């Protein structure tokens, strides 16, 4: 017999052994955590549908694990979930509160996370951002009660720049979405090249409105610029279009093409589409918050349980649901069931609190912007010969930054990526008293 998320649910009754129940600590009241699932939007395309699927499957697997854990210590725990209807996030979030949730998690786009962050701050409840990367959410638009599990754009950008600069790539070409977020990512990337990873220079840039293709002009511009790396700071679908244009336009396979890892762009379906759009250029390296083939730090067992449960690899949305739950669950679990907002936030922000993201080291939240420190992963999109199944769509290449560096400070190590306190424009302290 193997433990699976499904099997866990079946055996819960057996866990309630009278002998155990007499001995375990008592948690005095029900513990409920609210999960906002991504809304089903057929018009949003197949990548969004994958996010919805991954989040839903992730929630089932997560709840099975945490209900199992809660039963061990006599905690009456349940994850309650809602999906927005017609884009009404607030109504769905309020429903969660009405059902007794002490905190909520969600935020699969920057707009969603912004909306929920404002609402949560008004309500005074903790909100865990699962998927929104925008640095603005950690700075001018920060919310005092939002905790960012999702890596920030700055963290992804520093990782990407660091990787390619260390790989010797010096001539950088940018394709920038003509939007507030696209411009912010570009500016942050320029800063990273100038201040953190010297040696590379910008050799060209094309700004494109969302949904607009660069076509042959893009490929010509990249070739003329003699770029050796192209960074697509666009939405996931536009990145696929750009890849196709670059390949069709004769950009040599030696040019490395990567893109900003939006949640949609961390899916294996995206990797598959990337390879289909550009068989050569579409099999490059990508940054990701999670990788289903990680084989260390207990991640082997964690990934294996998920694969057994659903028959598919654990994608980033499912991972985020699990660990968003873990942050909130442990705030109650390690404090004997305290779920009032300030106790929960105090636990999360306590420098002594440690969170295990299945990434091998204990992590913590940065006090200045409530961003969870963590390492990221670098994957390579596999070639057709290697991509024999969904798991093999990607090959794990590296960890950014490397966590195994004895003799160095762990927090400083993790703070190599992302914005430090001196760059923070968030002026809202966590309301702990």
């Amino acid at each position, binding site marked *: 017999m193997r433990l699976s998320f499904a099997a866990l649910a079946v055996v819960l009754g057996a866990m309630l052994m009278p002998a155990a129940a007499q001995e375990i600590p008592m948690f005095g009241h029900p513990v409920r955590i609210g999960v906002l699932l991504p809304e089903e939007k057929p018009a949003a395309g197949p990548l969004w549908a994958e996010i919805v699927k991954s989040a839903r499957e992730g929630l089932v697997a997560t709840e099975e*694990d945490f209900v199992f854990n809660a039963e061990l210590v006599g905690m009456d725990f349940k994850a309650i979930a809602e999906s927005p209807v017609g884009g009404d996030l607030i109504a769905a979030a309020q429903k969660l509160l009405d059902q007794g949730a002490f905190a909520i998690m969600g935020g699969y786009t920057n707009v969603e996370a912004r909306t929920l962050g404002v609402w949560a701050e008004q309500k005074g409840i903790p909100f865990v951002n699962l998927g929104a990367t925008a640095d603005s959410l950690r700075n001018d638009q920060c919310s005092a009660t939002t905790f960012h599990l999702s890596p920030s754009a700055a963290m992804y950008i520093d990782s990407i720049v660091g990787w390619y600069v260390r790989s010797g790539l010096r001539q950088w070409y940018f394709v920038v979405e003509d939007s507030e977020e696209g411009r912010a990512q570009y500016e942050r990337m320029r800063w990273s090249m100038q201040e953190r990873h010297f040696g590379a220079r910008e050799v060209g840039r094309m700004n494109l409105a969302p949904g607009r293709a660069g076509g042959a002009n893009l490929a010509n511009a990249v070739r003329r610029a003699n770029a050796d790396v192209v960074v697509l700071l666009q939405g996931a679908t536009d990145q696929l279009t750009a890849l196709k244009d670059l390949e069709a336009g004769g950009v040599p396979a030696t040019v490395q093409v990567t893109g900003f890892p939006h949640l949609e762009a961390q899916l294996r379906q995206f990797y598959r589409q990337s390879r289909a759009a550009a068989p050569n250029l579409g099999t490059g390296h990508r940054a990701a918050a999670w990788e289903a083939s990680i084989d260390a730090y207990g991640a082997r067992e964690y990934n294996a349980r998920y694969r057994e449960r659903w028959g598919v690899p654990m994608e980033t949305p499912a991972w985020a649901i699990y660990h968003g739950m873990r942050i909130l669950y442990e705030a109650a*679990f390690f404090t004997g069931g305290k779920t009032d907002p300030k106790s929960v936030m105090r636990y999360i922000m306590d420098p002594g609190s440690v969170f295990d993201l299945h990434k091998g080291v204990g992590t913590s939240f940065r006090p200045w912007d409530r961003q969870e420190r963590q390492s990221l992963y670098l994957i390579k999109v596999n070639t057709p010969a290697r991509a024999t199944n969904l798991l093999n769509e990607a090959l794990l290449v590296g960890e950014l930054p490397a966590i195994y560096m004895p003799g160095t400070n*762990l927090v400083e190590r993790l703070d190599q990526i992302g914005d430090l306190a001196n760059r923070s424009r968030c002026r809202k302290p966590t309301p702990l008293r």
Partner: protein
Amino acid sequence: MTYGFLVRRGFVGAALASGLLLGADGLAQTPVKPGDTYRIYVANEYNADITVIDTATDTVIGAIPISGRPGLVRPRGMALSPDGTVVYVSVSDFHPEFEVPEDKIVAIDTRTNTVLQEFRAGGNPERVAISPDGKQVWASLEAIAHGGGYDIATGTQFVQFRVGIEAEGVAVSPDGKWVYVTAEATHTTTVYDVENKRILKHVLVGNRPRCVAFSLDGTRAYVSAEIGGTISIIDVTRNHTVVANVNLGLDSRPVELVVDPAGKYLYVAGGGTSAIYVIDLATNRIAHIIKERMGRRPWGVTITPDGKKVYTANGLSDSVSVIDPECMCVVKNISVGRGAHSVQVGVVPARG
């Protein structure tokens, strides 16, 4: 089943230990006799074999194959029989989602370095512990969130009980009353009451608990927490309650631990910092941190019954470091197999 093995006898003079000794994961050993010799057994996770080292010379004297599928089948945790003459190895594969025939416990005779017995132990057994009477082996079954008890005489499982998710460390108290099983993803140590055949309680410990070892008198248990970087000290006599935590630092990532034969020090393998933390058990404070010349990512640690040498299994340097407790320093590094995971010291009894 018998494997070919090169045997070369070593000798350690005046190797006496007084009182009980606790090995990694709480194994209780009886005192050894004059003339007994020691061998170090190292489970090589990626080599599917066990390296054997002669402690007299600190040289490798052979390897015992566990499987013909290195890289696919992995030996991990080990424990010793009370007289030190049988090494038990937990064996599984790298795919916890699949049940495979290699999920088993293998018993090795230290006198001949041959396999004596194999027990079926389904559920990805990660670590094992032996009862003080030497009649039972207990295993953490990682993939199915269980602890399991096996009768050594028959090789059959007589009990299976639920613990937290990702079961890992297991130890039996010196009086044989309690079996402790840690669970990495649940942050718990489950206390199983052997006599009454029931789970007594689940104790919250540090973040991602790995291994557990009892004190010589059995009144304390020490649980390493890899992500928390702590050692939780459980008072066994006070309803198995955590009474103190020793903070080794977030980066320490402690795994195996062993109490020295004098009961003075707890040696903790700090996998994250490639260090051995030595905790003074009188004060529960760190007395020494051994880093110089240490191999990389020590997970395993054990000590000879005479307390004169400490050995570590270093997974990222495929080596064993030898520590002299007199100087609290590394005196030698020995190359072993790939992915050295755990280490135990076996006894070869004196003839006659």
